């Protein structure tokens, strides 16, 4: 089980930094998080941009929050939610038959891409919990706060998600791929 470090979130708290600096640091990471969940860089960038546009327009308030980083991620993973994520996740199952734009991906080594593709086949809550826990190094409590669920629920989702992923990726191993 992953350790509940949350260490990448230590540099938080109300900030007086300009929006531009915050954006340049956080935007690519939020795009990465959404890309991990959606599998489309274009859509991930678009959703991230909308999130940051909201932050920009209300920067005085948001920069005064306890954790602007967490606010941005919470809005990003919860906005427009169900349809887009569910649909694009569904699409990954038929990915081979899908025409793709060349610049619609973040280039990753095959084994890493395979892991994220497997994450996208999980139910939405499990996928989000896994992404926030591993990609953002969020603790169970932080994931629970971001997704508006009880910590016990998140613990169970992480457990089930990891088990399914092990099975999915283990099947790949059985077919001869290295782990």
């Amino acid at each position: 089980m992953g350790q509940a470090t949350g260490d990448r979130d230590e540099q938080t708290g109300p900030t007086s930094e300009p929006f531009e600096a915050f954006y340049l640091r956080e935007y690519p990471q939020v795009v990465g998080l959404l890309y991990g969940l959606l599998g489309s860089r274009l859509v991930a960038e678009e959703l991230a941009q909308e999130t940051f546009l909201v932050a920009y327009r209300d920067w005085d308030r948001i920069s005064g929050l306890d954790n602007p980083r967490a606010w941005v991620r919470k809005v990003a993973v919860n906005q427009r939610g169900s349809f887009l994520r569910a649909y694009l996740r569904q699409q990954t199952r038929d990915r081979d038959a899908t025409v793709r734009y060349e610049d619609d991906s973040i280039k990753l080594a095959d084994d890493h891409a395979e892991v994220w593709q497997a994450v996208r086949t999980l139910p939405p809550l499990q996928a989000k919990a896994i992404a926030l826990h591993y990609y953002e190094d969020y603790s169970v409590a932080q994931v629970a706060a971001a997704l508006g669920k009880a910590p016990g629920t998140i613990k169970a989702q992480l457990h089930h998600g990891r088990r399914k992923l092990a099975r999915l990726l283990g099947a790949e191993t059985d077919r001869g791929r290295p782990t």
Partner: protein
Amino acid sequence: MNIDERLRAASRALRDGSVAQVDAASRLREIVRHSDQLVAHGPTTLLPDPPGQPREPPMLLAPSPPSAARWSRSSQRLALAVNLLLVLALGIVIGVAATDRRDVAGTAPTTAAPVVAPPPAPAETWFQTRTSVPEACLDMAELGDEVIARLNRNQRDNRLYLALRDYTIASQACRREASP
């Protein structure tokens, strides 16, 4: 390598990949341009201007309060509405005046000797508004309709996926073209 380690490694790779491959600076310019009418941020010291683009005079980097931005936007709208009303009122006044003069000329007794030539009709003023919409925005609207239609018919297949993608691309292009 167990699943926990694989997830951590894949997460690290995605974080590094997104930081290296996502161009945040140009997207930030889009946000700033998009909101220029709301907040006068101006160029920032963090973002070099792209080559060939004239540099605007520097302004303060600190964001204005959102309330000021909203006020600025609403006052701009108010000014626009007042201007439109003035133009409309002027058009009506000119039109009514022209009609009255024509009526007066039309009801004048025909028996009167045509000694005095009728006063020249005032030049009529025509107002024509031409609106141009970027092509990408039209595409975006059409693709949006297509996506909605497919959703209504519950056609969640490849065609919807492609329409959604095209819509996203058109939407980005539309924003770029529509930005001042």
